[in-house]
């Protein structure tokens, strides 16, 4: 499952522990902050905050509200305030850890604050497999060994995938992360035992109500249901199945030069039930009817399934189509189908009979046809001028 990013606040809380003095600020909450000078930042996983003006230095607690107000106006909702850490530039380091096939890979540079992609020559690489490696690396780099051992321990225990501290301030035996970014393995949530939760993850938030509803549905099923709204006024809408097959079909649209016509992208797979497929299809049909495109096509397509039952998933799609059949016909929508898998013949026969009866049929094919056939015909349909 994908890697997801934690808020900087949560990342540092996990790394530094109780000694961490940062404060998490939400747009909608008032927090009491002790006296002192603070650095205040937007905490939503954005890169290059300094350049974008999303960082303010030397802010007194009383001025924090004033500082964040313009950010709030722009739609940012999460901020972080941390006591200023005075330091010398010579103490800045770069450090990252990433889980790789062989174990952990560490990148290290004696200069902090650099973009490592642009300065590969300054980066040292290490591979960490055991505690002997940690001791050796501490010796070579001059990093405090207990700090490095602690980082590796947290990294494993809390199911991190990637950790970048840039800069890391090293002063003798003291190491202080000034800026930290952590990607966690979303599949590790159960095993991390509450160290972090859904609420600590930034970005990837649903932009559209339909996406939100599908995400909520996804949370309740072992099947895979994904939806992204691409162009709300697109002409091609998709009910795709299979992680790989869905990309192939979308690729075909892009290669035909109509990538911008995609109304939505996503997939249902992993054996969803009839009811789950109905709820998913309903969201796609809703998007499609809301699109202002003149000519619209629905593509129901996917590979030859291994175990997803075509008969029952198609029954779910037909349930959703029946509810909107009149509206779809009025909008001159045509439906193009290509799908194979268990109970393929029955599933396709039901779908064909339904689409013919409702006068919605564009074309329909099974595993004997190439996977891209339905999308090709749908593209021809939306491109053709006459309605």
């Amino acid at each position, binding site marked *: 499952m994908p890697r997801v990013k934690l808020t900087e606040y949560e990342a540092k809380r996990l790394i530094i522990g109780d000694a961490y003095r940062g404060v998490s600020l939400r747009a909608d909450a008032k927090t009491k902050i002790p006296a002192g000078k603070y650095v205040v930042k937007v905490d939503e996983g954005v890169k290059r905050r300094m350049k974008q003006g999303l960082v303010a230095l030397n802010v007194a607690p009383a001025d924090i509200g004033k500082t964040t107000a313009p950010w709030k106006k722009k739609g940012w909702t999460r901020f972080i305030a941390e006591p200023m850490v005075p330091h010398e530039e010579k103490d800045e380091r770069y450090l990252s850890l990433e889980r790789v096939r062989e174990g952990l890979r560490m990148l290290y540079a004696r200069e902090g604050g650099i973009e490592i992609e642009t300065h590969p020559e300054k980066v040292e690489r290490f591979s960490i497999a055991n505690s002997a490696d940690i001791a050796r690396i501490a010796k070579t780099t001059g990093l405090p060994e207990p700090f490095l051992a602690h980082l590796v321990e947290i990294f494993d225990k809390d199911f991190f995938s990637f950790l970048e501290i840039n800069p890391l301030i090293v002063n003798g035996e003291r190491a202080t992360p000034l800026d930290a970014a952590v990607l966690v393995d979303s599949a590790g949530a159960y095993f991390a035992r509450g160290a972090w939760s859904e609420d600590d993850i930034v970005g990837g938030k649903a932009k559209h109500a339909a996406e939100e509803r599908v995400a909520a549905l996804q949370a309740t099923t072992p099947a895979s249901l994904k939806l992204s709204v691409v162009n709300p006024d697109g002409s091609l809408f998709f009910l795709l199945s299979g992680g790989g*097959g869905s*990309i192939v079909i979308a690729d075909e649209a892009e*290669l035909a030069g109509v*990538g911008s016509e995609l109304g939505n992208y996503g997939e249902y797979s992993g054996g969803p039930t009839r009811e789950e497929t109905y709820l998913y299809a309903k969201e796609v049909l809703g998007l499609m009817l809301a699109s202002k495109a003149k000519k619209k096509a629905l593509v129901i397509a996917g590979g*030859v*399934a*291994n*175990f997803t039952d075509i008969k029952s998933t198609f029954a779910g799609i037909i349930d959703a189509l029946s509810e909107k059949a009149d509206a779809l016909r009025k909008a001159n929508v045509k439906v193009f189908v290509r799908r194979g898998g268990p109970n393929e013949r029955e599933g396709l026969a039901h779908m064909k009979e339904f689409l013919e009866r409702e006068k919605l049929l564009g074309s329909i094919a099974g*595993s*004997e046809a190439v996977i891209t056939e339905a999308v090709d015909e749908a593209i021809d349909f939306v491109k053709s001028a006459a309605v």
Partner: protein
Amino acid sequence: MTILERIRNGEDGILVIGNHAKIVQSILDFDYLSGKERPSVVGIIAGNRRAQKFFWGREEFLLPCFAKPALLPVELASRVRFMLNLQSGRRAFETAVSFFETFPKALGGHLFAENVPERHATELIKRYGGTKLIAGPSGVGLLVPKFLKLGAIGGIDAVQISEGRLTGAGSVAVVSTSGGMTNELIHGVARAGKELSFAISIGGDRFPIASLTDVLTLAQEDPATKALVYFGELGGEDEYEIAAMMKEKKFTKPLVAYIAGVIDEAFDEHMQFGHAKALVARQDESARAKRSALREAGAEAPDTFPEFLRAFTNLPGKEKRDTTISIEPLMNREKSILSTREIIDLEHAPTFIRGKKLAPAGAGAFVRATLAALLGKEPRSPVTSAFTEALFTLSLDHGGAVSGAVNTMITARAGKDLVSSLAAGLLTIGPRFGGAVNDAAKAWQKGVSEGKPASEFVESETKGGKLILGIGHLKYRVGLDDPRVKALSEFASLLKKHPHYDFARSVEKVTTAKNGNLILNVDGTIAALMLDILSECEGYSEAELAELADAEFFNALFVIPRSVGFIAHFMEQKRNDEGLFRLPENLLFVRKDKKKDR
């Protein structure tokens, strides 16, 4: 010999962990259609059952289930070569490790779960990478046509197995990250008139246990494989490894690849697609960049999927299909809903009368037939039948005072029929009346298997005032023997060893030291001696005896004869017909009602 060759030599035993009946059935159908003599699946690891029904061709059979891999009997364990792990991401790692600890020589496996944490995947790579062939996490598994179907790969219905030509061995290898596209490619190969050498879905996770490099090495070393088709996606850098292998001549066979994901260019930001790995983090992870790298290394990497499929026709390998398989036997199969065997052989009725004289049926014919029905096989020893006959006789009735008999009689007096009255009596049987034999059997088994001194056993069993079933009598005591116990105990002299009986007696020694009434009672004696007799005379193992106790066999030894006793009490009540029974008021202790006093 490579793993693929060992599979083609018939090393195909699969142990399934977790449950996905449709996938398991598809493997059995594949085996059957491939002409195998026996199923490749040897068992299922499932905690809540002992067997599960599946079809072998048209016939149903029971596939054994076990709580953990270590419990497989030797004859099944010796066949295990592969793990099919159908557990969720939460249990996949733990169960995979337990499998390979039990079967260190296994050849490989497949992890079906979609959300196995990266840390678990890398740990599995550390332990088994390079030595075992493990498909996944995620994806649909491994297929060697005609020889092994490890997972949902190639589809789960018979039509798919037939149309994908999964039972004919050919020369084109299929490799894909995506499970669905593996199947699409298998069908593409079949449509191009070719057959497969093997197919593997390595899964769309970031760290597949069998890596692309591992699979290419496998394909290179496999004499049957003449060419390879590959489906990959944007994200990750695996394709650069393929390119490197080709440049270094570590992979020299023709390769046709499709890298999906140019659609990513249509979005403002890089998008996370369905598979965990399918996200572009650096420019060189894009579909286009990876295609170019492959082309440069000498692979064919078409831009569109239809072109990719058309390229299959030019691959080496035979075009003609020499055999057709009939899936007819697998269609419209009807599942039975209960399993049973024939308790009584109706075909062979015994001779009762011979030459107008009674034919000798042999002593205890009814008891023998009863034991055969209960145990599922004829008793071997006359001791078993004689002991059963003895305990049946002794347990027939214990007078009208006992609660089961009382209920039977009261019900009969209320004018009810035979079956209702008998049921009233039978339903009274439980922990306090008549139901102790089974619990006593469990107690003696526990005692013998733990091997602790009886005093310790008594102490731990009676904590909190609990009783040991099989011990204690209201009337009989030390010095006043229960005559039934005395009679039954004589059977011990027919046995070489009687550990359960000895243990029961040593427990009695401890308990009677506390109270003279805590003697070994008739329930405890029946249980102990039946255990010893089944063990010595019928060859039952401790595990088989435990199964009998779990199925309450030892309670049946009371229920059967006592049913006769209850019916006898019923008959007597009907003969006497004294009308409705009512308890005399003076025999009831009536508490004073406070309200009435006021």
